[in-house]
C-alpha cells in the first residue's frame, strides 16, 4: 500500500519534471503571424513602452535609456522569438542588463505591463500565452539579486 502510494507520487513528480523540460524553440512563424506580423509587433512594443514609462515601479530603469533604440531592439527581439523573418541586432539579454540590478519584482512589473499591452491590443489569450512562454526564460538571464559586478560599465554602451 505504502509503496504504491510512493510510486504514484514519484510518477507525478516525473510528469512535472518532464513537462517542465518540454519547451522547444519555435520551428515556424505561427506566433509571428498571430501577433500580426512586424506591424503588429511594432504596435505591441509601442503600447508596452508607453505603459512602462507610466509605471512608477519601473519607469526609473528606463529614464536614461535611448527609447528609440530600445523600441527597435525590442521589436527585433520579439520578432525573432516569434519565429518572424528578423535579425536581432542588440546585445544578448544578459549582457544588455549587466549594468543594472533588475529584481524579481521589476521583471514581474514588466510582465504585467506586457500582459496589459497585449490585452489593449486585443490579442487572443492563447497568443498571449505563446509569447509569455517564449519570453519567460529571459527572467533567469535578466534578474539578479546583488549589485552590478564591478567590471561592468556604469552606463549602457550604445
Amino acid at each position, binding site marked *: 500500500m505504502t509503496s504504491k502510494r510512493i510510486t504514484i507520487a514519484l510518477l507525478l513528480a516525473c510528469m512535472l519534471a518532464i513537462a517542465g523540460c518540454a519547451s522547444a524553440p519555435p520551428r515556424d512563424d505561427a506566433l509571428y503571424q498571430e501577433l500580426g506580423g512586424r506591424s503588429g509587433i511594432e504596435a505591441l512594443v509601442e503600447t508596452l513602452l508607453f505603459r512602462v514609462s507610466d509605471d512608477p515601479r519601473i519607469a526609473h530603469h528606463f529614464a536614461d535609456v535611448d527609447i528609440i533604440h530600445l523600441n527597435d531592439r525590442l521589436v527585433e527581439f520579439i520578432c525573432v522569438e516569434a519565429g518572424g523573418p528578423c535579425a536581432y541586432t542588440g546585445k544578448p539579454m544578459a549582457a544588455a542588463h549587466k549594468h543594472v540590478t533588475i529584481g524579481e519584482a521589476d521583471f514581474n512589473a514588466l510582465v504585467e505591463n506586457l*500582459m496589459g499591452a497585449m490585452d489593449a491590443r486585443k490579442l487572443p*489569450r492563447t497568443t498571449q500565452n505563446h509569447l509569455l*512562454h517564449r519570453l519567460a526564460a529571459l527572467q533567469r538571464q535578466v534578474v539578479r539579486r546583488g549589485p552590478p559586478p564591478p567590471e561592468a560599465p556604469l552606463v549602457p554602451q550604445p
Partner: protein
Amino acid sequence: MTPALRPLLPACAAALLLASASACAGQGRLLATGGATQIEGSAGGGIVPWAVLSGYGTDKQSGGAAFYTRVETGDYALDAYGASFTVANRVELSFARQSFDLGELQRRLALPWDALEQDIYGAKVRVAGDLVYTRLPQVSVGIQHKRLRDGTLPLAIGARDDRGTDAYVSASKLFLDAAGGYQLLLNATLRSTNANQTGLLGFGGDQRASRSWVWEGSAAVLLDPRLAVGVEYRQKPDNLGFAREDDWRDVFIAWFPNKHVAVVGAWADLGSIATLERQRGSYVSVQWSF
C-alpha cells in the same frame, strides 16, 4: 496612510521583526501566484497545500494572507479561518482554526458536543525553483502541527492522540503555454500523516496507529489571469475501526480580481465521515492578501 491601511501596521511590524525585509507587504509577484488558502491554513488550493507561498512578496518583500472557508456537506459543516505570513518568498508561517460542526451525528448519537475544533500551526519553506520561471517545478517542504482543542470524543472513538504533525513535500509548476494554449498549473504533494479526517477525529487509531504516506494532487487551467478552474484529489489514511475514511476530491473555480482578494467556490466529495456516508457539498473560501 489611509485608514484602510491601518490594519496592515501590525503585519508590517511583524515583518520587520521576523526579517530585515527591505519592504513590507510587497506585491511583486504575478497575480494568483500566491494561490488560495487550503483548509489547514497553508497556501494552496482548497484541500491540498501547494509549493507556492502566501501573499505576493518576492525574494526582497514580505506578505501574507488571511482567509475564511466554509464547507457544507448536508450532515456536517466545517468552518476554517486563519492567517499566514511569508518572508522573502522563502518561509511561510501560518495559523488556522477549524471548527467542525457535528450536525447530524450529534443529533443521531445525542453527543454532548456540537463541534470539534483544532488549531493548526503551519510552516513551509521553499527549497527550490520558481512556479513560473524555472524549468523544474517550485518545490517546498512543510509541516502542519495540529492540536485538538478538546480531544475527548476522538480519543473515545479510538484515536491514539489528540495532537499530531503532518509533514509534506509539494511540487508546483505553472505551464504558460499548455492545455490548448491556456496556462496550466499542476501540483503534487506527498504527505506523511497519522491524522484522522485531517485531525478532527484525532491522530492514529485502533485499526492503524502508525503514519501513512498519502499523495495529493491538483490541476487547474487559467482561462484568464484572474480565473482558474481545476480539480483536486487528496488521499487519506484509514486508521479508525468504527468508521471508514475516504479520499477527498473537489472541482473548483477560483477568481483573483486583484492582488488583495481571491474567492474560491468548489464542489467537494468528502466520502464517508464518522459513519455518515456520501458527504458532498459546497466549498466557499475568501482570501485577503497583503
